[in-house]
């Protein structure tokens, strides 16, 4: 199990068990879980909490790892919050091989830099693309919608993108 010192917060969301760990200790936490039987990485992704008022978030980006123990079967979600420009977190491609492409996708879509990844390049967008499309401040279509009741900050094109 993950040692108590690494756990920042834990709980259950709609029946799914989750645990938040320090971003710097993500490899330690995931390898502890792996030796505990959680050998399958179902997916890895990121959530952008820009302007999310549903609660207080420790940082803007939340990197999410869904692990599974296929013997029992049981699942656990590991979260790590990262900030910075660009945000950094350690790569886990050697612990969980499917993470290789998932980390490339997360880099492509959110600009999270996974340290020590063997080939951190864009995977879905073209290589010369500017910006990271799934960030909340990246617009859909890029045209501001005038007179819209639902006009939100992220619908307006950022100056740089």
């Amino acid at each position, binding site marked *: 199990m993950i040692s108590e010192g690494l756990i920042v917060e834990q709980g259950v969301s709609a029946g799914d068990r989750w645990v938040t760990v320090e971003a710097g200790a993500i490899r330690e936490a995931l390898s502890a879980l792996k030796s505990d039987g959680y050998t399958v990485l179902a997916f890895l*992704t990121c959530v952008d909490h820009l302007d999310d008022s549903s609660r207080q978030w420790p940082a803007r980006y939340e990197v*999410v790892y869904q692990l599974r123990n296929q013997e029992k*079967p049981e699942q656990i979600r590991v979260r790590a919050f990262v900030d910075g420009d660009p945000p950094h977190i350690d790569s886990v491609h050697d612990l969980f*091989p499917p993470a290789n492409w998932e980390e490339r996708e997360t880099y492509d879509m959110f600009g999270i830099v996974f340290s020590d990844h063997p080939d951190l390049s864009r995977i879905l967008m073209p290589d010369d693309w500017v910006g990271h499309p*799934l960030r909340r401040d990246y617009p859909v279509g890029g045209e501001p919608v005038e007179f819209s009741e639902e006009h939100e900050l992220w619908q307006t094109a950022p100056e740089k993108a």
Partner: protein
Amino acid sequence: MTDTIAEGVTVSRTGETGAFGGELLTVNFGPHHPSTHGVLRLIVDLDGEQVRSLKPVIGYLHTGIEKQMEALRWQQGVTVTDRHDYLSPPINNLAYALAVEKLMGVVVPPRADALRVIMSELTRLSSHLVWMGTSGLELGAMSMLMYCFRERDTILDMNEEISGFRMHTSYIRPGGVMADATPRFLEMLDRFIHDMPGHVDEYENLLTNNPIWRSRTIGIGHLSAEDATVLGATGPMLRGSGVPWDLRRSMPYSGYESYDFEIATSDLCDCYGRYLVRIKEMRESVKILRQALDRLPDGPVNVDDRKMLPPPREELETSMEAVIHHFKLFTEGYSVPPGDVYVAVESGRGENGCYVVSDGTHKPRRVKFRSASFVNLQALERMALNHMVADMVAIIGTADTVLGDCDR
């Protein structure tokens, strides 16, 4: 020379010397090659005819579906889920619907669950039929396409009857299904269940003992059970390597625990094994369909919650409250309590998951589709190394990737 693809998975990049004396030739295979099942591009290093390294390049069918979901209301998102794995729309709907329902704490009525199972199994059949038709075509069994698409068309007719749409049905929605099954649909389904085992026999007659098919698939694309697990493969790719992991049995949803069916596995670990798994799965799907149809419960097909689903048309004429609910749902939509949830369902290709994050507003904060093709494609290099270029076509074929699913 050995190389580590992933922890615990090593490959050998040397074999008998090819025609060019070991000199490597880099070839672009795709993205427009007809046998890459869509727009998959492979950069292969060839030593004569033998594959020495293979790098899949994806993203040609990226449509920004996850981004679109964030701009749509919860109930509008269903139409977008149809379109990522375009060979199994109802299964994608199901993953999304189950995720939203789990967040909202909604339980659908038994008849809706049974209809969802029926649509999922029909979809699995039609997806396997497309796979078998196109893979047969690629490996020289041209008539397979005609036979398989004949039955697939029957399934599409049923889709049309129950939802009004042949392919992108949007039939399964958060809170239930779009409409109840019509008597004609149940009749068509009954006839289909009666005929389908005979059709599967027909496909087996054409392929299972066909010497060309056997020599093109047996021993090709070997993927051991350990490698398949480590590389995260799911679905027929994993079961074709002898691992009995099926989400319908291991982590049941929509009442799959109450159906009697076997998990198809094969210990051959090659393309032929994956073919046998899919054939067996088609027979098991028909079994599930028969059970679901025989004990289809009566009752409503949607939750009785006016805050989530619009009122019936006839109520709008007499009830002011119904009009208000209707107006609210179609202008603002409903809000889902803050939180996140991951739901995985078994599609024809493997684990089709949906991770949904809500911030309490009427649009999702984040929707992530965990697609089986995306993960399964990473095992391609392991399977194709030191095979001939022509075998690569068999390997891509039996991996059954849908590029729309892969790129989303």
